[in-house]
């Protein structure tokens, strides 16, 4: 068929079909490695974490709802840790949201030049600051501030509120950047349509832009929450680390799933009930990550359905 075939006797080269298989194989192997490691991770966390319930004889229900985490007494109630994790996550999201959203609106709607070129790179710098450094600042600044504002009621200054404040700063760049992307993705025609009707900029933003960007904004918030939920060392340094019972207020010292893991792993011996119980905490963290992903997918598909 190819008349050129005789003209150019092909140099020694790998046949194209074979070359393509090599490419597919190489890249496929990379994906496979990632997938296998993830599967191994899930398997291992589940295997170790479920031992608590199947081999060590601790009921799943009492693990989740038990109000006292005192491994030295053999009492494994993870509720204080779960409550700790959720309260710092929700609270920090609450603090961050207005600031992130406000900044995003400013960047996209008011000063795009300044926002994109200067503000966004600067905010992204915040992502790069290591969490131990945030912890260090939290320990010296935030805890001290708590003590001077609330006095003896704040104890050492460590507590849920301190943790939430530090986390709020840490997730601010994530939520801001994603919100900027969400708002920027709203077609300009929507804005022009609104302006053509004589709406002010604020009305346009409030009624048109935010509304149509809602699914992406929600994704931004969930991504921020995912990060807050999994953050470890910064929180550990400022939250007080009291795992034994339920936190009673925002100034109360508490612990999260992640902080209990970090401090517990160095004290537990491999194969002990405590060790398995710590993996169970890891399993809860893993389940929460998967849950967050699920929510993001649901928002995504709902958003897509709406646009159809």
């Amino acid at each position: 068929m190819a008349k050129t075939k005789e003209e150019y006797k092909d140099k020694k080269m790998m046949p194209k079909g074979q070359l393509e298989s090599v490419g597919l194989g190489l890249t496929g192997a990379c994906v496979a490695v990632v997938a296998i490691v993830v599967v191994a991770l899930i398997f291992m966390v589940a295997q170790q974490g479920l031992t608590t319930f199947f081999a060590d004889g601790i009921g799943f229900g009492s693990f989740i709802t038990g109000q006292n985490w005192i491994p030295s007494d053999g009492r494994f109630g993870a509720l204080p840790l779960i409550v700790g994790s959720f309260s710092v996550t929700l609270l920090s999201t609450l603090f961050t949201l207005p600031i992130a959203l406000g900044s995003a609106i400013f960047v996209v709607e008011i000063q795009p030049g300044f926002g994109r070129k200067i503000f966004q790179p600067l905010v992204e710098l915040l992502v790069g600051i290591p969490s131990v450094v945030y912890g260090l600042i939290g320990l010296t600044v935030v805890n001290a501030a708590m003590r001077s504002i609330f006095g003896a009621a704040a104890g050492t200054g460590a507590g849920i509120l301190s943790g939430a404040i530090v986390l709020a700063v840490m997730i601010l760049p994530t939520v801001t950047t994603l919100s900027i992307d969400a708002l920027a993705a709203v077609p300009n025609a929507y804005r022009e349509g609104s302006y053509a009707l004589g709406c002010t900029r604020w009305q346009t933003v409030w009624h048109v832009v935010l509304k149509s960007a809602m699914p992406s904004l929600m994704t931004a918030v969930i991504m921020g929450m995912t990060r807050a939920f999994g953050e470890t060392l910064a929180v550990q340094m400022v939250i007080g680390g009291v795992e034994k019972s339920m936190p009673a207020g925002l100034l109360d010292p508490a612990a999260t799933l992640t902080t209990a893991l970090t401090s517990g792993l160095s004290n537990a011996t491999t194969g002990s009930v405590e060790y398995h119980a710590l993996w169970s905490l890891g399993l809860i963290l893993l389940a929460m990550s998967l849950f967050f992903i699920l929510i993001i997918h649901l928002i995504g598909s709902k958003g897509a359905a709406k646009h159809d």
Partner: protein
Amino acid sequence: MTNTRDIILTTEDVTVTYGTHEALHPTNLTFAAGEVTALIGPSGCGKSTFLRCLNLMNREIPHCAVGGHINYHGHDINTPKENLYELRKSIGMVFQQPTPFRKSIRENILFAPKRHGRIRSKEQADELVETSLKQAALWDEVKDKLDRSAYALSGGQQQRLCIARTLAMKPDVILYDEPCSALDPLSTMSVEETIRDIASTGICEAIVTHNMEQATRVSDRTAFFYVGDMVETGPTKQIFSNPKDQKLVDYLTGRFG
């Protein structure tokens, strides 16, 4: 320009479906050496889709299935066994947007021949660059800056570079997918001239266009597509002077399009 020419490509009941939607209904056309065939019709009528069948480019699109037979030199290429890479060496394609690679002009020409193992010496490479660029009528404009970035060229020059690049593969069919729609009138003229010149060397060409003047200027035969149907085909003069189908009449008189 009669039927004495060699038939290079024939399609028999070629269909294209995306998922469950049939975008192109059974289409039969023939393409001959040294002839330019224009595929015209309103946008979304299936003409580009049809063009992309001819070098099996539709295989690169997920969920896109091509049915029927495509005979190239009398051999059906629409089979899973067909060697895409060999085939595309002989059936070149030029796209709507000029798509030079981020490389020098010389490297743009030599990129594919090198990867196909066709370049064995510097002299041969230089010769290939020169003949291809001359064929695309670009040689005089760029011969002093072959090592400069292709992006330094104007839009029309870039498009002719893409044609030269295709010619360097020594194809016997070249498919153009609206090659001038991103160009200014002057560049368009030069590209059209190039297309005519190439046809005169015996290469078979097909061009998708929505510009009817362009079709009359460059093509020998014309096929009119409408909503996934090839409605009418014939010598270009006849199609424009004596259209038979009412839809074609309406299209030519500007009722839609």
